[in-house]
């Protein structure tokens, strides 16, 4: 389980995160939802130790983040994370070289699924293709948790469909997935748990199935209540 407890962060004089707490369970898809600037990406970066926090704590499987923890958690940011001068095959080799939990067979399957060319230069990929390759780099690791930052942002319809298919495959089974998005429509039916952020604070935290059964509301209905008042 990923446990985020009361994390706080200021950037210059602005409070970016004002005491965010939630949990993301293994075997579930948890979505961190919010409008632009709500603090979603900062939470993911804080979990991965990519930005320091001013207070609170983060634990992954009961442990604080450390280099060893990067063997149990993968992060798929909203941008390319490999030098543009590399070819896709170099990127795959880089992952194989440095990540003991890298699964080359799964990487091959994903490369075929997304129809990616190993000889293509990373710097020449379109935004959609770059996100597909980013997904390969994250999903081909045998890790317990996967974090994704806005995987659908600025991507064409067919690429979005292809990426959404990954969520229904065995690739996410038994793993804990934490995904941020402001385009909830693509994955609403797949989410188990939703955490709504607004101005750096958690405003709603609920089980989607329970919400549907007990209150007859979809995630979008709850979002409307929260963000439109």
């Amino acid at each position: 389980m990923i446990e985020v407890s009361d994390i706080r962060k200021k950037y210059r004089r602005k409070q970016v995160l004002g005491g965010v707490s939630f949990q993301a369970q293994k075997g579930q898809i948890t979505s961190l939802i919010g409008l632009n600037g709500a603090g979603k990406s900062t939470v993911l970066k804080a979990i991965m130790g990519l930005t320091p926090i001013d207070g609170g704590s983060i634990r992954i499987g009961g442990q604080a983040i450390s280099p060893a923890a990067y063997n149990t958690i993968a992060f798929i940011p909203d941008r390319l994370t490999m030098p543009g001068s590399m070819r896709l095959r170099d990127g795959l080799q880089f992952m194989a070289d440095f990540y003991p939990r890298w699964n080359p067979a799964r990487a091959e399957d994903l490369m075929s699924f997304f129809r990616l060319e190993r000889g293509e230069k990373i710097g020449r990929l379109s935004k959609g293709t770059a996100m597909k390759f980013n997904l390969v780099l994250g999903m081909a690791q045998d890790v317990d948790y996967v974090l994704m930052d806005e995987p659908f942002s600025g991507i064409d319809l067919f690429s979005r469909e292809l990426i959404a298919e990954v969520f229904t495959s065995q690739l996410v089974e038994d793993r804990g997935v934490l995904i941020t998005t402001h385009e909830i429509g693509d994955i609403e039916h797949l989410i188990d748990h939703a955490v709504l952020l607004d101005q750096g604070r958690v405003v709603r935290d609920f089980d989607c199935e329970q919400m549907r059964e007990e209150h007859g509301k979809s995630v979008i209905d709850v979002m409307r209540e929260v963000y439109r008042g």
Partner: protein
Amino acid sequence: MKTNLIALLKLADLEIRRFRGILLGLMALVALIQLGGLSMVTRTRLSQIESQIERSGMTLAEFKLQNSGLSLLELLGELDGVTGVAIACCIVVVAAYTLIIWYRDWFGRASFAYRLLMLPHPRFLLYLSKLAAILTFVFSLFAWQIVIVAGQMLLYHVQIPHQLRIERTFIDTIRSTDLVIFIPVRLTEFLLVYGLGLVIVLLLFTTALLERSYRLKGLLGGLALSAAAFVLLVWLWAGAEDRGSFLYPTELLALFIGVLLVSAAAALWLGWRLLRGKVSV
């Protein structure tokens, strides 16, 4: 331990491959300037000597007796300006790359810093791999400069008739030129020159990491720290060469080495701390 060592070697290899184009370009430029320059200067001097001989009706041997021949050092002396420019180019590029090696991972379309900071190995390996890459860069240029001096000696032998040559050993040639600063022939000089260079690289690394951690405040702090250490080291160096100083040169030298070691240790420690928990993407 073994896994981390392998990761360090692979990271250093990656860093070296990323700048090999710049390094090869610089090597070509330096060779072109120094060898091409020497060849041009030699041809001009030879044609001057030939016309002098023609006018006076002397033989080459007689000319040498009267004018003591044509030494390589004399020819290199005419090239001092361009050689200085070539070496200054190398220093500027290495100094700039010492900062670029960090910033290229943060800026641009690919944020490689994300990937590097998420490697399942201690983050300090990034620091060490970049340091190893810069040292490779510097020592490659250093080794190349030695090859160029050897090349210049060869060119001298090919172009200058034996009657005009003044023979000198390889070490003597290096020792007699300004290159002696960059190619120290004594071990202590080598350790001091390259020790100072290493500390400057460490201070620049720490400044870059302070900036990546605390942005403008970090940059100003890093620059102040680096400037203070640099001024102190230069002052001690100058003092060691100044006979009127209140301390003996050996005492100043010991102090210089002490400041060098303290600066290096402080920069490494700060770099380790920043990478561990302060640096952000």
